[in-house]
């Protein structure tokens, strides 16, 4: 279960990305109007089904100062398709425009209480959590999406309006935790 709820502050983190850089959440927030943190991975079919839409959000909202980062916390020993090299390849092959970060120790995922891939956390410019849950209401059919939760949350934040759905169930594969 998520450890932060609507209205709580951003949990800071610094993680390496496939582009060779490290990204810090607070710094990203300081540079933008909102920060989207998506826990996701390579292998999960739900993550794959939503990947294009998340990529489109990153592209569509970049000009309005929205920063989006994806974090892969999966145990790559059990799921080699989720290792750093495979992540980098996926960014190239699929033209992903957002930083794809690796949470090797799974500390960030645990700090957030993330459970699924994908699982979205949206923070406004003050670092306050404004939305948590699924990217939208239909992993199966993009054309049949009735509630684009992530886009709606960003639109509301950017227009200084109230978000209709601040919390939805994250839908996806379970995060593949390392054996303790």
């Amino acid at each position, binding site marked *: 279960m998520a450890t932060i709820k609507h209205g709580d502050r951003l949990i800071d983190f610094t993680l390496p990305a496939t582009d060779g850089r490290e990204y810090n959440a607070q710094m990203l927030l300081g540079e933008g109007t909102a920060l989207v943190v998506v826990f996701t991975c390579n292998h*999960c*079919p*739900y993550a794959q089904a939503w990947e294009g839409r998340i990529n489109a959000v990153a592209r569509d909202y970049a000009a309005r100062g929205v920063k989006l980062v994806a974090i892969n916390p999966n145990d790559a020993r059990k799921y080699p398709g989720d290792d750093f090299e495979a992540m980098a390849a996926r960014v190239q092959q699929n033209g992903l425009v957002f930083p794809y970060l690796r949470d090797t120790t799974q500390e960030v995922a645990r700090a957030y209480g993330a459970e699924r891939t994908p699982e979205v956390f949206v923070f406004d410019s003050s670092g306050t959590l404004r939305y948590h849950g699924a990217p939208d209401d239909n*992993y*199966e059919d993009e054309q049949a999406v009735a509630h684009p939760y992530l886009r709606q949350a960003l639109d509301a934040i950017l227009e200084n309006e109230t978000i209709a759905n601040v919390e939805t169930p994250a839908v996806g*594969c379970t995060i593949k935790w390392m054996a303790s």
Partner: protein
Amino acid sequence: MLEKRYNASETMGSSIAKIEFLYWEGCPSHERALELLRQVVAEERVDIPITIIRVDTEEETVPLDFYGSPTIRVNGLDIDTLPGDLPQPGLACRAYRRVDGRISPLPPIELIRAAFRRPALV
């Protein structure tokens, strides 16, 4: 070696002896996948009950040949080729490829129908 021969004049529909649906609770698509399977069973007028198997532990996946949820087998044959990126059975969500090439956690209904219409073995 047993040679498999197919009778082109018969389809699997007239000789279906077993339908299995295996799933893991950790993947949310199983209810919808079972709906699709039931829809095809009704369409094909197959009067065989679906054996529903819930897989709960990693240990169970090996004897069940469970490479992810959901798994559908008709007469013991998986409706799809096994996922290449899963080297061993395990508790995971299966990725199916839709007719438009996109990945989905749900088996396309066309794939399920094709499994029911496979030529019968003779």
